[in-house]
């Protein structure tokens, strides 16, 4: 259970910069307007970020694309947990079958 000083410096530097990215949004948000284009942009942000994270993963291969489509359709009907379990199952089955 030892900590190397250089490793710890790197961890601390990563941590400080990561906290800055986290708090900066909170601090500038107070100065942002409550309506208008900036508000429209902020309201659209959650789905925009989620899709930006997911789209390259889903389009990285045919199995991911099929499993992604399955999740999309399931999510319209099932609660989150069931959607995730079935989606993961579809991905695992496709990999067993084709890889």
């Amino acid at each position, binding site marked *: 259970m030892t900590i190397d000083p250089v490793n710890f410096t790197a961890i601390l*530097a990563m941590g400080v910069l*990561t906290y800055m990215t*986290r708090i900066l949004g909170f601090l500038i948000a107070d100065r*942002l307007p409550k309506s208008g284009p900036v508000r429209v942009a902020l309201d659209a942000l*959650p789905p925009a970020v*989620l899709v930006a994270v997911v789209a390259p993963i889903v389009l990285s291969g045919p199995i991911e694309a099929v499993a992604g489509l399955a999740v999309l359709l399931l999510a319209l009907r099932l609660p989150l*947990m069931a959607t995730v379990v079935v989606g*993961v199952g579809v991905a695992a089955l496709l990999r067993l079958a084709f890889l």
Partner: protein
Amino acid sequence: MTTPLADFRAGLVAVFPTVVAVIPFGLILGQQATVKGLTVAEILAMSSIVFAGSSQLIAVGLWSMPAPVAALALMALLVNLRHVLMGASLSGKIAHFGRLRYLAAYLMTDESWALSERRAVDKPVSRTFYFTVALSLFFFWQVSSVLGALFGAYLEHPETYGLDFTFPAIFIALALGFWKGARRTGPVLAASAVVAVAVHATVPGAWYVIAGALAGITAAVVTAPREVSAIAEETAP
């Protein structure tokens, strides 16, 4: 109104699938970090101080001895820049937290942020809800990355079981929760997806998340209904 107990239970229900998703991710991180020669104490320090999964996994990939401090720090900054946009969006929804906002920011991850934004669509985000979600994720992130470091040798090819698909599945399902009709949300999702995929294919690093998110919100502003634009003009200085 909701009671703290009801919010606590709602938080547990909401966070459960993401905890299930975080555990294999943390196991992989811990296992990869020991391969690079990091000690269990260092892995626990990183998971608790940085507490940002994708940047930690990339950091472990870049790690060498002695640690390339500047490169690791810059990478963490770039990979986590999306937090600025996320925090700006979440801030108003947890404005009533007071000074606890500084702790809330420290614990904000993709998962706790997405679940809180989703909660805010239907109900106010209470302290109880937020910290139930965020602290559960924090706790299981520490436990799983340490367990991964201790027992990682037994963990091979988790992708065989489809476990790596847990995160995309959660995020797709959550994204649908923000659907406000094809006219309002369609352009946002399309622009975000197209730009994210294009940037991911052409630009190294994590810029694709920022690029896709910016494209999505630009599409929202450009295609916003008229009445919204009219309000914007009235309130403009």
